């Protein structure tokens, strides 16, 4: 465990009491509307998996998760318990209320077929990638959403440390089998996940694996 990651905070919620449970395979989208007060838990079932995630205001999806507003509100790069996920209008969409991983990324973005050609090699264009998964998941949930709505996302369980001299690296994950992050919706939101299929870097330990998504109603 990296000594500079945040203290781990467990949840008291019982998975047997969840209103919804779904396992999402690597390379698949998942999207669903959350009502204000509902709790969303994402579980890294086998460890070192990146869950690429976007959030939108359900009433006005033009207002959506903003990585830069989230970073500047907390004056810190990494997401963990207590982080408020801010919208492009400067309002909290969700709050992280439990985290047994300790650090989540919002600088690394999502892989795409096009960015894979830039990052790895021109012949990687055919490989499955998060941004096409996001497009499918967004359109299943709201047909009017498309590429224009894919902003800079969260990578739950991914570790992208920045050094004091400004270098950025993709490191082995801090996560492990069964670790989870839990978020409380501060209002009605759309949650959109691409369970990352990337095979070219250690963000999924070169072996993309399933996640589980659970939702609890407000107590």
């Amino acid at each position, binding site marked *: 465990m990296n000594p500079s990651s945040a203290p781990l905070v467990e949840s008291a919620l019982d998975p047997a009491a969840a209103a919804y449970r779904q396992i999402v395979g690597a390379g698949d989208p998942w999207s669903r509307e959350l009502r204000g007060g509902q709790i969303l838990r994402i579980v890294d079932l086998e460890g070192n998996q990146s869950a690429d995630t976007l959030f939108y205001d359900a009433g006005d999806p033009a207002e959506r998760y903003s990585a*830069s507003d989230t970073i500047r509100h907390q004056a810190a*790069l990494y997401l963990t318990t207590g982080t408020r996920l801010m919208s492009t209008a400067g309002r909290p969409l969700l709050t992280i209320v439990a985290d047994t991983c300790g650090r989540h990324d919002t*600088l690394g*973005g999502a892989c*795409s077929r*096009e960015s894979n*050609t*830039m990052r790895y090699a021109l012949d990687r264009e055919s490989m499955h990638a998060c941004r096409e998964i996001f497009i499918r998941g967004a359109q299943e949930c709201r047909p009017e959403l498309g590429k224009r709505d894919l902003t800079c996302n969260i990578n739950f369980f991914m570790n992208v440390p920045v050094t*004091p001299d400004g270098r950025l690296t993709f490191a082995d994950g801090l996560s492990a089998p069964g670790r989870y992050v839990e978020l409380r919706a501060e209002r009605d939101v759309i949650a959109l996940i691409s369970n990352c299929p990337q095979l070219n870097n250690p963000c999924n330990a070169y072996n993309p694996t399933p996640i589980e998504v659970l939702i609890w109603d407000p107590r």
Partner: protein
Amino acid sequence: MNLAIDNAPAAPLYTRTLDHAGMWSAVLGRGKTLRCTALERGANVGLLLYNADVPVERYNMPDTLKGQHIFYLRHLYCLHSDMGRVLASIIADTVGWHDTVCGASDAALVAQKYGPSTYQAARNEFHRNARDCFLIELAKWGLGPRDLVPNLNLFSKVVADEAGRLTFVPDHAPAGARIELRFEMNTLVVLNTCQHPLDPDPAYHPRPVRLEVFAGPPPGADDPCRHSRPENERAFLNTENYCALRAPSSVP
């Protein structure tokens, strides 16, 4: 490392000075260079870039950072789009560090930091914020809130410690500091000179910035920005393919 290289010819095609919280937007064609010069110490330029022909392609902070393994921008680095291509290259830079992650101020932050200020009372020195400036300029090109993505803050430096906590470095850019961006595609440039959102200065004081645009050819095969990273070489190839395919055919 601070580098100043004069790549641009002497006479600009266009010059504009932004005072107070100035805002500006323009389409700059492939090969054009935009020079931004800080006219006072502590300037900041919030910047967003879009493919001028197909604006759903836009500057992408994560692809720019992970393509170059860096958390800030400086000379020789490139501003990547979300389509594996280069929108602009930093061909000259006297500053050496430009913030990529802290985004824009908004009305709530400006009111909290600097107090209320209305046009009715303050006329054209009323307090503006970067988010509203971006939205006003974006609207002139048919764009809006769906097109707001994390922006660059030229001339500003923010460093991260090992836990990811951020510290703003005051007065990073001296008066006369400059950066030159060469556009590798036809690019919609949207910018404003509002203060950096983490600038702790209690005074509302956006600094003036001079903009100059120069004409020039697209980069040659030996261009140093192109060869600054293997990722940039591939992104330049993708960009050239895109430009070759969309250019009108010269064959009758």
